[in-house]
């Protein structure tokens, strides 16, 4: 069955080391190290002081059984790096003595590794992550639905991944969510009753307007607003563009609440500029705009063009919030001059009403509910076509076993099927056929066999190869973040997946597949910690013109760079420095890069050969924003990011009792960053780590919080007086009062910095060169470690080192090509065995 020789060879080889090299160095471990530690370490890491929370006198010297193996490994790393004993130590050992100790420790650890390989390093049982659950439910049920609404975000492991079995939690609220979502999803996927005969609603409007609002039909569920007619004509604002508004009166459109409403819009531009067409549902009123954007498209050209938008009626505001005080629920179709508006989440949708109009909406057609086929595909995925469909008992068996096989990603045992059928039978006594089946399937989707990536028989003393379907599942969640498709399952059925000759081809096919986008998104975001942009609020006083869509654009830039490196199988050194990137018009403007005039729609690949300040992730706005506090760059966070995410050497978390620099202190605000950081390093408790972290962050100083380039940074001067002159009466704000101008001062930016090892660099170009020359190996190995951790869904351990070293060596030979590394990981012993 199992034909790949590599993993077995590796295990055998290590086993040989373990037996052929009896505990030679290990025997000398305590006798050599103990006196060394007593003489050089205990002063700071002993009973009296525990610098860095490290205490060495109480560590066990039994490395095979003792609990302190990881601690000793830390000792080794510190000695290796030359960090310890510190330079200023009084009786620092001679380099020669250090070399002897380090060498001995290395030997000791090699022996320990060999001895532990057979027991450690198992992939921990893990459940589906939030996004894997979403993708899997979507593939399984074939409906477009948010299955994770209300599900908490997954915890991140220390190395930054959300698919790590050890850090994942399960709570009753979560379990309840899975159960209720399964029922809800199945109810949506399965139809009962007759095919709807015809479209309920279909209308065409000719308009030549720039903005159309469609009101839903008034039903009993929607309380009738008072005085809508008069409001509708009086609440429109009076800018020239909006004067061309048409309200289509209620009672005409889409009297249905579920399903899809299809909106076809014909538009044309009146000049050559790019226009933006958007469709949203929600409500607008004098005070409240709460619109949900369905989609927006950019267009240009004087020729008439048609765009189609599908609106899920479930997204429409619920009747309970229907109509109050002049705000009207509607479907909004609007076009703008794309250069004149920006997105502002808080106040509805777009800000900056265009002053001129250069486009018309020629016509609008709505129809729905859209039924593509009957019964829908989602229904026949569950209730499969069968010759036995008239025989209830036989058909139930077919339906349930078919669904279980897909949901559990493996063949089902007789016992498992019998249990499910028994549940179905019990339910059938009280329920109709379809609901009885549905309830059984709810159990299937709440079962650990669905929610967990289970790999059986884990008690074996030695690692054993994964079963075929377990391998298919690992592969699928690694590269697609979803369940194996039919093709992959078939390969597993026939045992071909284990064929090492075919495996490479399978991986290549999977990377080419559209679902590899999931890998790009989830690995890239987690590897680079870009999800942090979601928790940064860009401060409107510092960045009044910031368009919130730029946050998504910047994220997209990073993902597209990653995608190209993956799909074209380029070297991962392109992450550090690349001569191309992907931009759309908005992001190019934000970066101050001229945009190719003839390709203005969407993202395009842009050569950076003649562009300064951009290229590689160090210049990506996504990274800068994640490393900011929304007001200014956050040099420490950015510096820590370089160490943690790029060099896979995370700085320790600051001790809880170290006070932070008080950012609200106005004196601090007027100091240059370097002066601020100098304060930081004066404090000894901070200095130990920050002299390694901060210099990296300084190199980013030319990029502001939002990733835009700057020569000087702006400091707002506060003029607040504490609570003075406050009127005791509630007074309403007078509209249109003149606002006091915000006071600014500027501080010049200086991005030259001396790194901990003494290298002086100037800004990001200097940092790139430094990383590509002095830290290339560390970056490359770090990447291997991180990708391997993601592939396995667990943190790496000591025992994984030989595999990491082997993979890294191969990666060097392969010219750091990303797809090659993925293939090497897939055929590695760690990935193939459990």
């Amino acid at each position, binding site marked *: 069955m199992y034909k790949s020789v590599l993993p077995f060879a590796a295990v055998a080889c290590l086993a040989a080391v373990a037996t052929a090299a009896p505990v030679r160095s290990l025997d000398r471990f305590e006798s050599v190290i103990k006196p060394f530690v007593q003489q050089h370490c205990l002063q700071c890491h002993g009973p009296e002081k525990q610098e860095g929370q490290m205490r060495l006198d109480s560590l066990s010297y039994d490395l095979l059984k003792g609990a302190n193996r990881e601690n000793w490994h830390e000792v080794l790393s510190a000695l290796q790096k030359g960090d310890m004993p510190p330079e200023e130590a009084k009786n620092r050992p001679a380099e020669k003595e250090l070399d002897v100790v380090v060498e001995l420790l290395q030997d000791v650890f090699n022996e320990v590794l060999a001895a532990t390989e057979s027991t450690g390093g198992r992939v921990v049982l893990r459940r589906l992550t939030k996004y894997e659950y979403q993708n899997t439910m979507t593939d399984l049920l074939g409906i477009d639905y948010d299955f994770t609404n*209300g599900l908490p975000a997954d915890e991140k492991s220390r190395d930054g991944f959300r698919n790590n079995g050890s850090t994942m939690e399960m709570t009753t609220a979560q*379990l*309840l969510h899975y159960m209720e979502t399964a029922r809800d999803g199945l109810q949506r996927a399965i139809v009962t009753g007759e095919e709807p005969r015809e479209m309920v609603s279909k209308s065409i409007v000719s308009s030549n307007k720039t903005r159309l609002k469609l009101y839903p039909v008034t039903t009993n569920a929607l309380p009738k607003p008072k005085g809508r007619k008069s409001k509708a004509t009086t609440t429109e604002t009076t800018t020239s563009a909006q004067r061309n508004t048409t309200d289509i009166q209620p009672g005409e459109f889409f009297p249905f609440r579920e399903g899809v409403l299809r909106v076809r819009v014909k538009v044309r531009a009146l000049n050559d500029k790019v226009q933006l067409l958007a469709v949203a549902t929600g409500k607008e009123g004098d005070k409240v705009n*709460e619109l949900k954007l369905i989609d927006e498209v950019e267009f240009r050209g004087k020729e008439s063009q048609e765009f189609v938008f599908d609106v899920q009626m479930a997204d429409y505001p619920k009747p*309970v919030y229907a109509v109050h005080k002049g705000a009207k629920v509607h479907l909004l179709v609007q076009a703008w001059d794309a250069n004149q508006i920006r997105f502002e989440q808080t106040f509805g949708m777009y800000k900056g009403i265009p002053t001129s109009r250069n486009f018309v909406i020629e016509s609008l057609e709505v129809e729905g509910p859209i039924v593509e086929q009957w019964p829908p595909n989602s229904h026949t995925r569950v209730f499969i076509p069968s010759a036995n469909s008239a025989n209830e008992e036989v058909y139930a068996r077919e339906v349930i076993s078919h669904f279980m096989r897909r949901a559990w990603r493996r063949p089902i045992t007789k016992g498992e099927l019998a249990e499910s059928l028994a549940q179905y039978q019990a339910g059938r006594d009280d329920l109709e056929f379809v609901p009885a089946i549905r309830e059984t399937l709810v159990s299937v989707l709440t079962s650990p066999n669905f929610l967990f990536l289970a790999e059986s028989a884990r008690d074996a003393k030695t690692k054993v190869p994964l079963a075929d379907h377990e391998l298919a599942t690992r592969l699928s969640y690694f590269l697609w973040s979803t369940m194996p498709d039919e093709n992959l399952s078939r390969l597993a059925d026939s045992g071909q997946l284990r064929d090492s000759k075919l495996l490479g081809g399978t991986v290549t096919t999977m990377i080419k597949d559209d679902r590899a986008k999931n890998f790009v998104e989830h690995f890239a975001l987690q590897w680079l910690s870009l999800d942090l942009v979601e928790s940064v609020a860009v401060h409107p006083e510092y960045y009044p013109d910031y368009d919130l869509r730029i946050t998504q654009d910047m994220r997209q830039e990073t993902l597209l760079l990653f995608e190209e490196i993956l799909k074209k199988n380029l070297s991962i050194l392109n992450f550090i420095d690349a001569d191309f990137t992907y931009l759309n018009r908005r992001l190019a403007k934000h970066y101050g890069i001229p945009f190719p005039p003839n390709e203005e729609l969407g993202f395009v690949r842009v050569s950076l050969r003649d562009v300064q300040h951009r290229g590689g992730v160090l210049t990506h706005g996504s990274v800068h924003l994640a490393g900011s506090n929304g007001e200014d760059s956050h040099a420490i966070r950015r510096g820590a990011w370089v160490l943690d995410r790029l060099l896979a050497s995370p700085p320790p978390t600051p001790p*809880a009792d170290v006070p932070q620099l008080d950012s609200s202190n106005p004196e601090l605000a007027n100091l240059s960053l370097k002066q601020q950081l100098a304060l930081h390093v004066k404090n000894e408790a901070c200095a130990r780590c920050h002299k390694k972290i901060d210099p990296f962050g300084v190199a980013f100083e030319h990029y502001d919080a939002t990733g835009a380039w700057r020569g000087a940074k702006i400091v707002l001067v506060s003029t607040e007086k504490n609570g003075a002159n406050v009127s005791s009466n509630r007074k309403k704000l007078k509209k249109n009062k003149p606002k006091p101008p915000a006071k600014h001062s500027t501080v010049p930016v200086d991005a030259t910095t001396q790194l901990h090892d003494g290298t002086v660099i100037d800004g990001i170009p200097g940092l790139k060169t430094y990383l590509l020359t002095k830290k290339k190996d560390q970056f490359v190995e770090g990447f291997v470690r991180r990708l391997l951790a993601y592939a396995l869904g667990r943190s790496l351990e000591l025992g994984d080192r030989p595999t990491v070293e082997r993979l890294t060596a191969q990666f060097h030979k392969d010219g750091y090509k990303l797809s090659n590394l993925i293939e090497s990981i897939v055929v590695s012993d760690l990935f193939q065995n459990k």
Partner: protein
Amino acid sequence: MAKKSWHIDRRTMLRGTATAMALPLLEGMSWAKDAAAPPKRLCYVYIPWGVSSAWYPTATGKDYELTMPLEPLAPFKSQMSVITGLSNPKCRNLQGAHGSVDTFLTGAAHKPPEYRNTISVDQLAAKYIGGATRYSYLLTATNGGVGSPTRSATMAYTEKGRPIPTLADPHKIFDMLFGKVDEKDRQRMTATKSVLDDVREDAKSMMRLLGKHDRDKFDEYLSSVETLQKDVQRSQDWLNRVKPVVLKEAYDALDLNADPREAPESFVRTMFDLAHLALQTDSTRVVSYVLASMQEGNFMRLWPKILGYTDHDWHRFNHGNDKETRPDYDKFITEQFAYFLNRMTQTREGEGTLLDNTMILYGSSNSDKPHGTTNFPLILAGGKNLGLAHGSHHRYTDDIPLSNLHLTMLERLGVPVESFSDSTGMISEVVA
């Protein structure tokens, strides 16, 4: 208003449930029958984006004067303490202010990249005092769910530091507390029970195939199933016990249709009404309400604008735009809290009022400074019968953790713990 199916008068209820175990509840009757003393309750109210500097009283001790934004609380001055200066020292990272709903009740060092949280004080309390009532706790918010780390929509976290979702729909909350139990509820419960039984069998079979390490991990799933089974059992038991009936006047005063997007005041008062009713009827003894989460783009941000205090949203308002009207808005928020306290004092219970038997902690984990993470504005109200002493303004230094107050309240409830989160002691000044 049309009569709702679950709104039945007492006579009907008596007839319909002649064999039921309990009589419909009238004000305060729930506990009176089987307990000598009124139950001890706990309530937390969170307000986002801090307050203006004008909120903070200047003098401390008994003789402090209520500031303009606190004026609505004048009738309750002797039943509450203003507490300033406390904070969560472990959560002072730079995003800590707007990302601090998460840690208001936990005090955890909630930091990127992992954002690990720990158990919240309300959940710890619910473990001890949640067993006797229909619901162990009631978690509400203006927009419900869990939100996302640093933008939480809930203050409640499990022992493992996982968020517990909040409820936001007044109809749903009312239905949960007082709605009629019908055949559908029973069917749903039966279906849930059946799924859980089935799934538990799957889990047990799976357990047999796992190695030791996995078994420890998988135990979380199994215990979740078993906890849910117990919950279902508990719910089924309670299904057979009649829910309390809300008196007509109380029901008529409720505006369950209040739209938080356009009528913030009505909505907030409705949520306070529901909290009051839940506590009054002893449906639960632990209640929390998040007035607004600090998620970007949520509609609560617009409240100050809708209400005419500013042209800006709440967040910018907090950043010093329209400084002169900010204290007025603080006062508006305080008025809502005063409304709640008023309802709590108007309900007689034993020798005193419902407020006397309920400790309410109201406040924010933002200060008067934009993104300020020290000097939380806090009010501790009620709990006279639990031994709280009131009438003063207490000011503490930045190094005293809020957890000390949490611990003090736990101790008043009789929860046998010696410390909570990063607590270093008690806040003895609020204890009689």
